[in-house]
């Protein structure tokens, strides 16, 4: 019965799920965030309500959906509405506590690019674009970012700002958000396959815990700037056997996202 040790991706999912303890309404993205949110609902956040930008509130997916518009998130949900109402009344209306975002590029202030690599008019790589990300970054009370970390994704300067984070610094961002009446307070945590980052009052991300097996050198090599490290840096707590069992047996038995 001794389980295989946790992979880095599993550590990332478990760490992200634990961040949801006590949260109420969560805007779910597909893929890794979806697994993290479903894990949280089965462990640290049984009261969590799942919102999907496709128009679903209070989803009870019977299987892991491949897309955020899968029929399994509809059947048995509390409410299914038009996207005008979902984005207008639920998200912009300020009813979402946590929004999950992924990123192709992120900078030290949590600003995110999911639009292009290279020049906008003549891109090297055309990425999907905003979708609802730009609105989630502005309207969700706080934003959790989940992504794999590398020197190509953690960059000094993002090629395009799709979703605002702490802009050019914490104070200016807080002032702007207040002035312009944003509901959101911006990014509060970035969970990667190497560790967990939080944001200081200067708006810059700080590594607060390191996954067992990862090293600070590895983190520095996978970060496009000189990263701030918390003086009380700790190892990320190990996943519980039950968390691993849920991921492996219930949430992603095919290992589509977690291997």
């Amino acid at each position, binding site marked *: 019965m001794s389980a295989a040790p946790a992979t880095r991706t599993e550590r990332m999912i478990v760490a992200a799920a634990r961040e949801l303890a006590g949260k109420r309404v969560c805007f779910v993205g597909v893929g890794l965030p979806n697994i993290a949110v479903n894990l949280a609902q089965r462990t640290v956040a049984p009261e969590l309500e799942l919102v999907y930008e496709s128009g679903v509130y209070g989803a009870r997916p019977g299987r892991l959906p*491949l897309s955020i518009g899968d029929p399994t998130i509809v059947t048995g949900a509390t409410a299914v509405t038009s*996207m005008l109402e979902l984005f207008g009344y639920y998200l912009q209306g300020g009813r979402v506590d946590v929004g999950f975002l992924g990123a192709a590029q992120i900078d030290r202030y949590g600003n995110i690019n999911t639009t292009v690599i290279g020049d906008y008019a003549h891109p090297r*790589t055309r990425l999907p674009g905003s979708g*609802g990300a730009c*609105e989630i970054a502005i309207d969700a009370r706080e934003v959790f970012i989940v992504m794999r970390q590398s020197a190509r994704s953690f960059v000094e300067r993002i090629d*395009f700002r799709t979703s605002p984070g702490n802009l050019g610094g914490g104070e200016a961002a807080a002032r702007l958000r207040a002035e312009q009446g944003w509901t959101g307070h911006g990014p509060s945590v970035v969970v990667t396959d190497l560790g967990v980052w939080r944001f200081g009052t200067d708006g810059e991300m700080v590594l607060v815990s390191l996954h067992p097996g990862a090293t600070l050198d590895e983190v520095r090599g996978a970060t496009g700037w000189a990263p701030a490290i918390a003086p009380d840096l700790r190892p990320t707590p190990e996943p519980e056997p039950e968390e691993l069992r849920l991921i492996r047996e219930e949430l992603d038995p095919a290992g589509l996202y977690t291997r």
Partner: protein
Amino acid sequence: MSGSKVATMRDAIAALVRDGDSVAIEGFTHLISFAAGHEIIRQGRRDLTLIRMTPDLIYDQMVAAGTASGLVFSWLGNPGVGSLHAIRRRTEGDAPTLALEEYSHFGMVGRYTAGAMRLPFFPLRSYFETDLPAANPRIRPIRSPYGDELVYAVPPLNPDVTIVHAQRADAAGNTQIWGLLGCQKEAAFAADRVIVVVEELVDEAVIRADPNRTAIPGVIVDAVVVEPFGAHPSYSQGHYDRDSRFYVEWEAISRDPERLDAWLREWVHDLPDRAAYREKLGPETLARLRPTGSAPSGSVDYGRYG
């Protein structure tokens, strides 16, 4: 109430979609009319501006087939899988050949809503401190007349044609949808012409039994096409599942232009219509996509009055 609008897909597309049109085939993941997209390819339409929040595989196919010169969208990908490579090939590098007009999801919803409501703009709290307004100058700041607050505006979107797949309609085009509603209602009301494609044609009495379920009234519909399984590999809630396996397979097909061309030949050009596509899919695929059980909504009572 009024005369029947039931038509074949061939006749509906021939009559209502013209070269150079702006065309919205809407439906967020759910109810995407692949059947209409394929018929547009077969009829060789050119120079279309394709409009969708999420272009999805259908626009990758239509772009690959040469129907389009522009794309208006908010999220460009194969959801949960990867990229739309045909579209990427025409948008990356030094000489993109497909004009992109890009918004966020709420921006696209706001555009359709302004189009449906005949508003000159729709205001929203988005785009602050992003590069999107610089990339798309049609996203503009606007000041509130109360307290000078700044928000952003998007312009109305009024497609020449909107095509919507739905679970059912009557012959006059009164259309009902359940499950994800996306922005179909807004896209239909915003359009000059509307084609509704349905799983089932039903009697007017079925529609009138549950008027709150009606998404699109017949008065704005030009043609009703009956095409069971017409949304595959997208899905129709309660009728069949999303064919996620095909979405995964598309990644490799789309990545290779020759394979993509062969796919278009085999599954679109060489088939006369959707009935042939259904047959070619075969009973095993249809069976695989059947829901695992039923989940009835239950009935509510509107009551008779007089």
